[in-house]
């Protein structure tokens, strides 16, 4: 059963390779919920197995072995990997753990700042804040009571029905707690850099999920595509008016508007039960592998401890 110990690593490689595609193919709502979950399970599983490797290395240090009544010789004979691999695993674990903690701290502070911004944006009953500004802009700010910020420039760029799309899209972000899933996916990627591509695709899935929610609300996918394209164009025009010479690629530029409009002009996403089952299986394998490893490690340390007592008794 020792091979089960490596199952989180296998799940990790599979998710790193298939994650981005999976997040694009799954229905956006399912992708937003399930992919970050799988990422966290894999990142935790891999982290736990690395920690176990570290435990065997550290436990063989004579002072610690004496304190815990372990026999270093028994530990050495029973350790799952060579000592050198154990040391390498420990170093990797510490680096990843540090990255994950930093990311968690930054995510937490950013969420608090967003909540504070929500309060300062004013007590709007319906959560909509209209800013008098020619620059077309619209975004959702999460908080205890989230806010949707829309500039007059954006409202003027859109027709009445397109404004409904915009508001439905941003309301879907807030109602679906999308910022939480982005945070979890990014945390998973910080703890496991192999999953960075998957975390990026979760961001696209979040936008797609809000687009689909808006489409369901207004009952017209083409209208959502048109609103997106119109808003993107209005932004580009305003940008050019402000900085006529700039032809360089902008920091915030990405290809997601094309991907999103293309998806909206295609038929609605299918359920994809097979892929959902596969993703859940991957998550389960990670969790089971972690559990089995915990159990085996406990057994191993127990055996080493008995060895020490027997040696002392005779």
């Amino acid at each position, binding site marked *: 059963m020792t091979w089960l110990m490596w199952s989180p690593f296998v799940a990790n490689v599979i998710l790193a390779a298939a994650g981005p595609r999976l997040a694009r193919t799954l229905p956006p709502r399912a992708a937003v919920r399930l992919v970050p979950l799988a990422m966290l399970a894999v990142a935790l599983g891999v982290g736990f197995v690395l920690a176990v490797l570290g435990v065997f290395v550290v436990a063989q240090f004579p002072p610690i072995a004496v304190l815990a009544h372990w026999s270093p010789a028994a530990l050495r004979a029973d350790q799952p990997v060579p000592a050198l691999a154990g040391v390498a695993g420990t170093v990797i674990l510490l680096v990843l753990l540090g990255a994950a903690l930093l990311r968690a701290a*930054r995510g937490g502070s*950013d*969420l608090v*700042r*967003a909540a504070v*911004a929500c309060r*300062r*944006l*004013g007590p709007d009953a319906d959560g909509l*804040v209209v*800013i*008098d*500004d020619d*620059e077309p*802009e*619209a*975004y*959702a*700010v*999460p908080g205890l009571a989230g806010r949707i*910020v829309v*500039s007059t420039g*954006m409202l003027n760029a859109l027709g009445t029905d397109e404004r409904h799309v*915009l508001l439905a*899209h*941003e309301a879907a972000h807030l109602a679906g707690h*999308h*910022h939480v899933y*982005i*945070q979890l996916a*990014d945390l998973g990627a910080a703890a496991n850099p192999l999953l960075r591509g998957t975390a990026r695709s979760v*961001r696209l899935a979040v*936008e797609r999920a*809000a687009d689909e929610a808006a489409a369901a609300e207004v*009952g*017209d996918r*083409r209208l959502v*595509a*048109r609103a*997106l*394209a*119109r*808003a*993107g*164009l209005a*932004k*580009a025009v305003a*940008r050019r008016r402000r900085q006529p010479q700039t*032809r360089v*690629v*902008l*920091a*915030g*530029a*990405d*290809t*997601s*508007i*094309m991907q999103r*409009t293309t998806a909206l002009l295609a038929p609605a996403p299918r359920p994809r039960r097979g892929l959902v089952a596969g993703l859940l299986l991957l998550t389960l394998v990670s969790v089971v592998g972690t559990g089995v490893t915990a159990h085996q490690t406990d057994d191993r340390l127990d055996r080493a401890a008995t060895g020490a007592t027997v040696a002392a008794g005779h």
Partner: protein
Amino acid sequence: MTPSEVLAEIGGGLAYTTVMTTLSRLHDKGALDRRPAGRAYAYGLPGDPSAVQAVAVAQRMRRLLDAGQDRAGVLTRFVADLSPEDEQLVAQLVADLRADGHRDGDDVAETRE
């Protein structure tokens, strides 16, 4: 208030041009309103104080988004910036979708699905 009134109010050794530049920058940021008064501008708060604060907060968040510094993904933007190549495609798309809308009006959904 005109820059000279502001200068008289806050005193200190500030130059007139410093006050004028500061006021006009605040106006650029949307924090102040202004209207011509003689050869200068008279500045004032645009509406009530809470609206001023909301505008200031919104401006800060937009700078964050523009700089691509919202790495934590707290803010979710309706549309990001377009690359010049995508802009062409999107313009074409808007034209196509609008043409459709004119041709079959509100029956788009029925005739297509």
